[in-house]
């Protein structure tokens, strides 16, 4: 090993340690043990590729799923410059030389001058809690203003907050309940014997067949169909909801998206574009009845007649996003909701007005659809959208409450569902 590589190695160790402290300042529980194993892991994989290097660090330094988004961000900020190793090494030196904590730093700063530099790697929690707290807030503020944004109503958003909320949606995990298909794969669950493999394995068996090979049923994510109301009364929500649809379209494998007002428009292909802002601009131009009136029944009919057979075939989940202000015939709306309910696996209705404590589902439109929906959920702030993830993920699993199954007073049923079941499950997620 030549001198240069020894130097590099020292640099690497120093910067890994420093990165660990950086993460700790952001609230991750990174102790000396984690840092040691991170160094070991980094040595094992080397720094040939950014991917392996990142996985090595993530595997050793992150212990909670909810910390991954922060880790991703911290990794990008910390290692973004090619000369990062050099910089961190010198930064560390300075850090060691200077005992006083530096409270003026902002992230992203070129070097991670964290106030934890005051103590050594093992000294966790023995410094003034205020400073630790302060730096954590600083870091979190740069990382995501999620906490502040989550409970703010969408209609009160500024441009900037809308952008941030869209970013939080994008960085969240989205998954949809699985469906058992009729297709089989090798597995340990004893659904059916795999005779071909059994015979192959036992060609030499002298007496009875002993090693049995099994197949089990394959699981697949369900398709998701989103029908989003963009009429006048929903105008305040339509932009963040389009961001939501854009995010989900890209995060889940089979998503079909439609907007409706006076007529139905399929926007699946527009949402497949990589750049959300660009996609949204095109949609705003393309969708003819942006902020017009609502004829929910007629548009659902259009969906049922032209799209249902093509999109709802294999146990689809349907998400209708609307405040239920329908100017059409309630009978038509009820009939088409009934048809929609019969054609899909689960029908979820998201209503922004459910966010109001005083809201009573009494409009004709809502009363017409209530008998047919499985979940009636609010969609008025970021938290409600993030909570939706829990419902989507739990679809198909036992224990997911449905609107009909809870026996509360009609106007409280949805609250009970939201405050009890979902929030309880949700606690601890980012």
């Amino acid at each position, binding site marked *: 090993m030549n001198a240069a590589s020894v130097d590099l190695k020292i640099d690497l160790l120093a910067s890994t340690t420093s990165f660990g402290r950086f993460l700790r300042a952001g609230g991750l529980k990174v102790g000396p043990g984690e840092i040691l194993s991170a160094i070991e892991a980094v040595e094992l994989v080397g720094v040939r590729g950014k991917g392996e290097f990142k996985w090595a660090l993530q595997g050793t330094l992150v212990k909670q799923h909810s910390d991954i988004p922060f880790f991703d961000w911290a990794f990008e900020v910390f290692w973004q410059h090619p000369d990062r190793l050099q910089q961190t090494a010198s930064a560390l030196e300075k850090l060691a030389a200077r005992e006083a904590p530096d409270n003026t730093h902002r992230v992203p700063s070129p070097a991670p001058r964290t106030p934890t530099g005051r103590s050594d790697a093992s000294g966790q929690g023995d410094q003034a809690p205020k400073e630790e707290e302060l730096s954590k807030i600083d870091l979190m503020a740069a990382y995501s203003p999620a906490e502040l944004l989550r409970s703010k109503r969408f209609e009160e958003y500024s441009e900037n907050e809308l952008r941030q909320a869209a970013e939080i949606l994008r960085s969240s995990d989205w998954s949809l309940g699985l469906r058992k*298909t*009729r*297709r*089989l794969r090798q597995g340990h669950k004893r659904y059916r014997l795999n*005779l*071909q493999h059994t*015979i192959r394995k036992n*060609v*030499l068996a*002298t007496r009875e067949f002993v090693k049995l090979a099994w197949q089990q049923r394959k699981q*697949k994510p369900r398709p998701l169909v989103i029908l989003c109301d963009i009429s006048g009364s929903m105008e305040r929500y339509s932009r963040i909801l389009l961001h939501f649809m854009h995010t989900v379209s890209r995060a889940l494998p089979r998503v079909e998206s439609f907007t409706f007002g006076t007529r139905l428009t399929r926007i699946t292909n527009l949402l497949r574009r990589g750049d959300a802002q660009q996609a949204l601009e095109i949609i705003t131009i393309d969708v003819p009845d942006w902020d017009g009136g609502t004829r929910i029944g007629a548009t659902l009919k259009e969906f*049922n*007649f032209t799209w249902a*057979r*093509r*999109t709802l*075939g*294999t146990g689809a989940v349907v998400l209708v996003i609307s405040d239920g202000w329908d100017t059409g015939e309630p009978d038509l709306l009820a*009939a088409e909701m009934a*048809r929609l309910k019969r054609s899909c696996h689960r029908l979820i209705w998201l209503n922004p007005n459910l966010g109001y404590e005083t809201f009573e589902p009494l409009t004709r439109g809502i009363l017409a659809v209530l008998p047919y929906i499985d979940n009636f959920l609010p969609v008025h702030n970021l938290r409600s959208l993030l909570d939706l993830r829990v419902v989507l993920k739990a679809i198909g699993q036992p224990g997911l409450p449905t609107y009909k199954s809870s026996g509360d007073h009609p106007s409280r049923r949805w609250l009970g569902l939201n405050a009890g079941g979902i929030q309880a499950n949700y606690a601890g997620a980012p």
Partner: protein
Amino acid sequence: MNGPNSIEELSTRLGDFDYIADRSLVTAIYLALKMEKPLFLEGEVGVGKTEVAKVLAKLLDTELIRLQCYEGLDVHNAVFEWNYARQIIQIRLLEAAHISDKEQISQEIFGREFLIRRPLLQAVDYQSDKPPVLLIDELDRADEEFEAFLLEILSDFQVTIPEIGTIRAKQKPVVIITSNRTREIHDAVKRRCLYHWIDYPTAKQELDIVRRKLPHISDSLGGQIVSFVQTLREADLYKAPGIAETLDWAAALNALGAAEMTPEFVEDTLGTLLKYQDDMVKVKGDMVASLVERAVSNSSGGS
């Protein structure tokens, strides 16, 4: 191949087998035969997609090999499977003969004679001098994974069995794939095929079809039936009736001894035409009466 040499000839010969197709479909079939490419047929339910393959098999005087697709259809049911029972017996026989060399046993039991040929392999490994017609029916019912198996067959007309090797078709089978479009089929499959969308027939074609398939129905009743169905298709129905429904309905009216169409006969037999309760409720009563009136006046005035 004693296939047709022109589009006109094909059209006539399809007609000989009572299949009335419009020019665009005949052209698509002709091209599929000449270019030796699979023909991918999409269209509403009951417009005669499957019938194309059946008629082609008769026309070319060859065997029709049919693969009905369903969810979970896999290589063992579509391409080949080993005959496990025979393999086990063979292993026992070899044991009795004191043969215990693993290689030898493997070679013995994974030979061609232990293979069960499913439709796709049958079509590729077809021994007669005339290539068969392979019908892959309702491909949209199979899951996406299955389409991958098809790719090798559709582009190279060959099947690869790990234990035996690649079996190549001596003559390319005539392949017809149908889909009711309950989902979109992957581009990779479509790219290897000629594509054709079969529409509902015109009144003239439909009348022609009814006359050919049910020659004992009177011309006036046939005309009324076609006029009724054609108007009904324009109504706002969840599921419009296809040609198959028209023929069923005509047969039903004939069986009831109807010489002329009346609202009563129509109401009694509506189940052969409409398959959704909502549609039935909508059509029964006034709509049937006005449609019958219109059909009767149309066919008497028109002919």
